[in-house]
């Protein structure tokens, strides 16, 4: 249940707009390391997954996030089974 397990379950991750283009996919399911418990930790970990991910999260301040379709800050919790989305500031209408 605690630090001894390598992963805590899976997470569905969505990317929109230029984050989707940089990562190279609109959606992926990742095995969540047990050490990743917040949005901020997830972003730091995702950056290590490849050059596309690194490019997507390089401009840290302008990336927004939603957890289970609610806007979320960097300190928001992420749990196995969550749907986490990353996107730029919205530019609708």
């Amino acid at each position: 249940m605690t630090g001894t397990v390598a992963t805590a379950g899976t997470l569905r991750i969505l990317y929109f707009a230029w984050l989707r283009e940089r990562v190279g996919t609109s959606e992926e399911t990742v095995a969540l390391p047990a050490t990743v418990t917040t949005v901020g930790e997830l972003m730091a970990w995702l950056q290590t997954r490849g050059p596309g991910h690194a490019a997507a999260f390089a401009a840290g301040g302008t990336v927004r996030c939603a957890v289970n379709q609610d806007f979320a800050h960097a300190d928001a919790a992420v749990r196995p089974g969550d749907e986490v989305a990353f996107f730029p500031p919205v530019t609708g209408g």
Partner: protein
Amino acid sequence: MAGIRVQAEDFDVGAEIAALTAGRVDIGGIGCFVGTVRDHGAGRRITAMTLEHYPGMTEQAMARIAAEAEARWPLQGCTLIHRVGRLEPGANIVLVLTASPHRHAALDATAFLIDWLKTKAPFWKKECFADGSEAWVDAREADDQAAARWAATAP
């Protein structure tokens, strides 16, 4: 209660007003805003734009803001339609309709809803330019200020 749609197809303003007001004789006025694609932005000519949304979250957020408008103003109905996909200059992008016994309620709610749709709803816009290049639109501070003014004011 509000009609919420995200769609690639165009909408028909007259038909949407007719649907909102059908059979009702207690409405005093309908406020309406239609956003359309301009052929230029930040000084450059735009040949098209592409709009992307977050299916599920976008519709939920639109339903929540419509419910908030219905709580703030005496609305008898409300329709929000936002298009996605590729849109060319002159095309409709977004429709806000509100019905109320009172004209100021209808128009204030319309302004509130379009400010929110432009600044807070999960849509992303990419502009295509005459030279074939494309660019995602940056969020504008002016828009954030427009939305922020509703935070402090009661109707």
